[in-house]
């Protein structure tokens, strides 16, 4: 009896944490190193320890400056730069799925420690720089009483907003600071359970279609297969009628969409699955092919089967497309924006990705805005840190970047939902 007790105690302590002393594998680009799957008794975890910015600011490359242009917001997530230079900020936090198993209660509490305690604004705030001096002194609430607004897109005189349960639109005239009327619903969006509640949005170049990124309703189908109908996909919505159809599927959580200027190709950043180890599965940036299937839930990075899914589907696994560019495991990309030459020669051709940061790793990853260079219309090389310092050397996290937007006048707008701030990065012009 005593021996089995000692054995149990030894096994418990050995299995409790998945520890790894090997260096992290290279996980960016088209061919990331994928280690073996790990599963211990507890997932590797490191939750952000929030602290205020005080006098500090995030770090930017030489030749660039960063300033906070708005503070005391209520969970800003995505932004949109309007043609006249005004910035629209979508504020809100959605989700709130009921507790179905003991883990939900515990996990919710633990992950919540790395986020802001402020209640989501459920509104759009408009920021205006009246005299072009870089200070956004004008601030107005464009629309409120929305339902966790996230994706934003302007098509002509219509402003589209993707709430967590519906795609709606407002009329917009140049210079408007308040919505002229209530939102008009274009189409309902899947919102039952809403484990992944964000609805990302992008408009086609001709304005005919809107693309909505809908995340899965679980990590890996633990809420049942039935809950995953119309989830983990990008919808193509007719802007006029609201009719919709799946455009691409198998994308676990496409949290930001952007249309490539010139080529018109739709790109997405996708958050891949958790609890397979600190270095699985890399989140990625990919072009979204019409009719394409990208693997979730059955496989990852092409044909790597996830054994946690039952029943399996070998046909879908065989058809799964390998994404274009890995960003790293658990970096949590939530923002995507194509750059423009106004950002300077070094950062003119490529995309900016806002990485919210990891929980499923002992050694945190993400917590920065990176720049992925493009060449010939495709991502190439290694990502370059563009805005960092959100997680300081003291281990405290002062901010977490979410959405990124490029102001064509030559600035990068970064939403930070931990310190509830909007940051603006500009180039020193000599």
């Amino acid at each position, binding site marked *: 009896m005593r021996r089995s*007790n000692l054995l149990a105690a030894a096994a418990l302590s050995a299995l409790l944490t998945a520890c790894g002393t090997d260096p992290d594998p290279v996980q960016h680009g088209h061919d990331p190193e994928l280690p073996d799957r790990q599963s211990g008794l507890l997932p590797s975890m490191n939750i952000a320890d929030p602290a205020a910015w005080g006098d500090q600011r995030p770090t930017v490359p030489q030749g660039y400056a960063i300033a906070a242009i708005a503070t005391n917001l209520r969970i800003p997530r995505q932004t949109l730069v309007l043609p006249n230079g005004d910035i629209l900020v979508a504020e809100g936090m959605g989700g709130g799925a009921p507790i179905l198993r003991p883990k939900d209660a515990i996990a919710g509490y633990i992950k919540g420690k790395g986020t802001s305690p402020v209640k989501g604004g459920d509104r759009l705030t408009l920021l205006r720089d009246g005299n072009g001096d870089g200070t956004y002194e004008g601030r107005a609430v464009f629309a409120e009483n929305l339902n966790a607004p996230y994706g934003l897109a302007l098509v002509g005189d219509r402003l589209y907003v993707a709430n967590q349960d519906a795609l709606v639109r407002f009329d917009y005239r140049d210079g408007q600071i308040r919505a002229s009327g209530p939102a008009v619903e274009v189409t309902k969006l899947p919102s039952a359970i809403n484990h992944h509640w964000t609805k990302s949005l992008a408009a086609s170049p001709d304005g005919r279609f809107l693309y909505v990124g809908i995340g899965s309703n679980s990590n890996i189908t633990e809420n049942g297969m039935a809950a995953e109908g119309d989830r983990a996909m990008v919808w193509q919505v007719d802007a006029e009628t609201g009719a919709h159809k799946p455009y691409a599927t198998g994308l676990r959580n496409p949290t930001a969409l952007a249309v490539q200027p010139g080529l018109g190709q739709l790109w997405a950043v996708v958050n891949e699955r958790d609890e397979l180890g600190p270095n699985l599965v890399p989140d990625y940036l990919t072009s979204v092919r019409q009719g394409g299937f990208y693997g979730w839930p059955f496989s990852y990075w092409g044909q790597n089967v996830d054994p946690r899914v*039952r029943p399996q589907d070998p046909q879908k696994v065989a058809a799964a497309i390998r994404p274009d560019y890995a960003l790293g495991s658990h970096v949590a990309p939530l923002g995507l924006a194509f750059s423009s030459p106004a950002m300077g020669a070094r950062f003119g051709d490529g995309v900016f990705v806002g990485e919210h940061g990891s929980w499923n790793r002992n050694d945190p990853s993400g917590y920065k805005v990176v720049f992925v260079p493009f060449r010939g219309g495709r991502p190439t090389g290694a990502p370059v840190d563009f805005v960092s310092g959100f997680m300081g050397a003291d281990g405290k996290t002062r901010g977490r970047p979410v959405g990124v937007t490029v102001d064509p006048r030559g600035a990068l707008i970064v939403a930070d939902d931990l310190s509830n701030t909007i940051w603006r990065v500009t180039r020193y012009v000599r």
Partner: protein
Amino acid sequence: MAVSDNQRHRGALHPIHAVLLAGAVPLFLGAMLSDIAYSSSYQVQWKNFASWLIVGGLALSGFALLWSGIDLLRADRRGKLPLASFLLLLTTWALGFINALIHARDAWGSMPEGLVLSIIVAVLAVAATWLAFSGLRPGADK
């Protein structure tokens, strides 16, 4: 009066202790049956049932373990039965706790360890209850 004193010394369980100990058995048993249903149907709701039943079983048997441990520390307890009973219950609880963590893995990630442990823990829970109650047999002298 002498008879009842003897009974107390022969491992009679306090009614609440008895309820805590025996009450964990149907919970662990239910968890095992739910896991068997999950393994054959892939319906994840069965696994949710198992997860909650395991938590319930750990709660009840945890208190029973505490009670048993306190009894063990009291000077008037003698003999091998209380110690054996405590250790068996401790093993049940430890394996049950590991089982709870394994059930926290998503979807089929808890298989096959989850089912195996559920069966083991259910058997151990019955054994621990049996052992603890077996001290009540009249004439048993341990």
